[in-house]
C-alpha cells in the first residue's frame, strides 16, 4: 500500500461507528478488506475476527488490535424526547458537552444528535467552573416527545462521536476512534505485505472486541488460541505538550511506535522487548520506549492466559485519546507497520529467550 492508501484505509476504519459491544460494522469493513486481500477468517462467539496463517512446528504467534472505541449507551428517554446516557469506556465528561454524536437507529440507519449544553447565559459562576457529570447530560435528537424519540432509538441504543477525519499541520491526523482502528489498519497493512510469504511463525491476527470495558475479547481469543508470543498494537495517551516536564510526556509524536516496559496491567517480556528494539535498530525503523507507567491494554489478559504468553506492546503515541479528536502523526503509523513486518519476518525465538 502507498502512504495515501494507508491513510484512506485508516479514514474508512475510523469513521465507522463501533462503540464497545457493538463492533459489527467495524468487523464488516475488516472482513471485506480481508476478502480483498485473499485471506480466510473466522469470527468467534464474542465477535473477534481471526485470521490464521498456519505453519506447523513453528511458534504460535498472535497479533491483536481492538475494533471497539469509546462511546455511550442510552439509558433513559425523557418525556420531552431527550436521551440520557452512560459512557462506554473511560470518557472525560469535559470532552462531551456541545459535541455532535451518531447513534445506531432502531432500523440500523444512523441517527444524528448533539450532546446538549446549557447556554453560557444561563450558567451560574459556579457552573462555569465545574465540569458537568455525564449523568446530568443529555443527547438532543431534535424531537419533542418520548414517542417520537422511540421511533428512532431505544433503551440500549449505543453511539459514538460524529467527528471529521482531518489531515493537518505537518503530517498529523485528527479523528475519533484512532484508538484502536490504527492498530487494525496496521494489521491489514502487514497482512497485505506478508501475503504468500514463507514465514517462521504459526500466525494469528486477531481483531478483538470490548477492549475499552475490560479487555474481554482478547481474553477469550488468547484462551482459545494459546499463543506463545503476543504483539498488541495500541494507541497510548501522550502528554508531549508545552509546560509538561519531559519525564511525564510518556512519548512523543513522530518519533516512532512506543514500546512499553510495563503498564498498569502488564510487565512486558524483557527478551521480546530487547528483540524488538534490536530489530528496529538493525532495520533503521524509528522506535521509542514509553517513559511513563500508565494505562493498560489487551496484553493485560493475554500475557496471563493459559500457560502464560510472552507479550510485547507497540503503541502509537496519540494525543487526546478517548475524545472526538485524537491526534497522531502519520509517520508513526507507517513505521509501526514496518516494525511489525520486521518482527514477523525476522523472528528468532532463540534470540528472545537468550536475551
Amino acid at each position, binding site marked *: 500500500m502507498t502512504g495515501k492508501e494507508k491513510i484512506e484505509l485508516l479514514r474508512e476504519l475510523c469513521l465507522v461507528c463501533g462503540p464497545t459491544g457493538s463492533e459489527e460494522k467495524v468487523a464488516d469493513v475488516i472482513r471485506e478488506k480481508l476478502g480483498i486481500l485473499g485471506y480466510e477468517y473466522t469470527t468467534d462467539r464474542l465477535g473477534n475476527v481471526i485470521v490464521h496463517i498456519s505453519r506447523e512446528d513453528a511458534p504460535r504467534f498472535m497479533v491483536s488490535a481492538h475494533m471497539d472505541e469509546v462511546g455511550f449507551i442510552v439509558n433513559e428517554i*425523557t418525556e*420531552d*424526547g*431527550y436521551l440520557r446516557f452512560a459512557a462506554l469506556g*473511560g*470518557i*472525560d*465528561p*469535559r*470532552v462531551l*458537552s*456541545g*459535541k*455532535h454524536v451518531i447513534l445506531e437507529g432502531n432500523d440500523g440507519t444512523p*441517527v*444524528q*444528535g*448533539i*450532546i*446538549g*449544553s*446549557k*447556554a*453560557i*447565559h*444561563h*450558567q451560574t459562576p459556579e457552573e*462555569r*467552573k*465545574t*465540569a*458537568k457529570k455525564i449523568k*446530568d447530560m*443529555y443527547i*438532543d*435528537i*431534535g*424531537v*419533542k416527545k418520548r414517542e*417520537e*424519540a422511540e421511533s428512532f432509538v431505544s433503551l440500549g441504543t449505543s453511539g459514538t462521536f460524529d*467527528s*471529521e477525519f*482531518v489531515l*493537518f*499541520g*505537518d*503530517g*498529523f491526523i*485528527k479523528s475519533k476512534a484512532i484508538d484502536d482502528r490504527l492498530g487494525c489498519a496496521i494489521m491489514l497493512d502487514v497482512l497485505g505485505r506478508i501475503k504468500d510469504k514463507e514465514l517462521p511463525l504459526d500466525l494469528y491476527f486477531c481483531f478483538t472486541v470490548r477492549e475499552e470495558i475490560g479487555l474481554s475479547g482478547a481474553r477469550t481469543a488468547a484462551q482459545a488460541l494459546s499463543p506463545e508470543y503476543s504483539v498488541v498494537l495500541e494507541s497510548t*495517551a501522550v*502528554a508531549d*505538550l*508545552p509546560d509538561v516536564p519531559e519525564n511525564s510526556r*510518556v512519548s512523543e509524536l513522530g518519533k516512532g511506535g512506543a514500546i512499553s516496559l510495563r503498564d498498569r496491567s502488564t510487565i512486558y517480556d524483557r527478551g521480546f522487548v530487547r528483540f524488538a528494539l534490536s530489530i528496529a535498530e538493525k532495520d533503521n525503523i524509528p522506535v521509542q520506549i514509553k517513559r511513563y507507567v500508565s*494505562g493498560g491494554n489487551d496484553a493485560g489478559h493475554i500475557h496471563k492466559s493459559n500457560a502464560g504468553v510472552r507479550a510485547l506492546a507497540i503503541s502509537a503515541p496519540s494525543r*487526546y485519546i*478517548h475524545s472526538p*479528536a485524537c*491526534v497522531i502523526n502519520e509517520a508513526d503509523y507507517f513505521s509501526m507497520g514496518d516494525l511489525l513486518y520486521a518482527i514477523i519476518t525476522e523472528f528468532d525465538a532463540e534470540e528472545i529467550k537468550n536475551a
Partner: protein
Amino acid sequence: MVINMELKELIISLSSLMSVTGYESHDSDRLESLIGEYFDENHTDKLGNRIFVKKCGKEGAPRILVDTHMDEIGMFVTEIKDGGFLTVTNVGGVDTGILQASDVVIYGEKPIFGVVGSTPPHLQKPDDAGKLREIGELLIDTGYKKEELEKLVRVGTPVGFAPKYSTLAGGQIAGKGFDNKSCVACVVEGIKRAGNRLAGDVYLMLSSREETGRAGGGALTGAYNIDPDYALVADVNLGRTPDTKKNETVEVGGGVSLTLCPVTDKKLTKMTVELVKSKGIKYQLDVTGGGTGTNTPDINLTRAGIPCVDVGLPLKCMHTCAEVIDLADSDALASLVCEFVCSEEIAEVFAR
C-alpha cells in the same frame, strides 16, 4: 411541514462564514454573492456594519431598519508556544465547558486546522477531575512546528469553530454559527419574499460587534448613521432544554418569539403581534424585566430614540458548536419580517 430547502441551505452557507467579532468582513465577497442580488445597494460603515438597502421607490418613504448581527463568538491567539501549540483568549461569551476536543480554524496567513487539547483519563490527576480549565489554560494543537507557525500566525490572529452541521432525527438542524447568521438568512428570506410590496426603504443592517458589546456594539453607531423611523431587531433567543427554566426560555419549534419588556416599543410590538396573528404565523411571547440581551437597547437609545420591536429565533445550546434550531421557526421568522416591512399600517403610525 414543507421544509424550505433553500432557506436551510442559506442558513448553513451563511453560518459557515468566518465572522468572529471584529472580523465581520472576512468573507465579505462570499456574503455578497449569497445575498447581494436581493438588494439595490450595499456598503460597509466605519465600524464594520454591513448595510444592504432595498428601496420601495416612493418619494419621502420612511426608513425601516432591520437589524440582525453578523458577528460570531470566537477566540484570539495570545501566544505561540513550543511544539506548535497556541493559547487563546475569548471573544464574546465562550463556554470553556464545550471547548476541549473541539475542531477550530485559525485564520492566519492561510486557514489552519486546529484541535483544542484535552487530557485523557489515563493521565489525569485526581484533583483535576471535574474542574473546567480557564480559557487561557487550554492549548490549541496545530500540528506545526513553532517556527513554521510563527510565519502564519501572530498575537491577535482570530480563531473560529470549524463548520459542522447535522440534521437531527426530528428534522431540527445543529451546528455552529446559527447565532446569529441563521437570523441573517431568515431576514434576507423575508425581505426577498416582500418583493415590491415594501412600505418603506428597508435598511438591512448586518451589525458588527454584538457579542462583545457590553458598552454598545456596532448597532449603536450603525443606527446613528442610518437614523431610521423605526426598527426591527432579530436575534436568536434562548431555547428550552431540560436544564433550563421555562420562564427564562422559549420553545424551539414553538414559533418566532416576540419580546415584551420596557425597552421594546409597546405599540409597535402590539401591532406586530396583531399582524403575525392575522397572517397565521406561529409565534410565542417572551417577557423579560430588563433589557433584551440583543441590539435593541442600543438602537432604541440612538439619537432622539428609535421605536423597536425585538423578535427572536429560538435556539438551543447557544454559543456552542452544536446550536440547534427548528426550520419551522426559521420560516415563521422570515414570514414575520416580510409582513413587517410590507405593513402600511405600521409605516403610517411610525413614519416621522
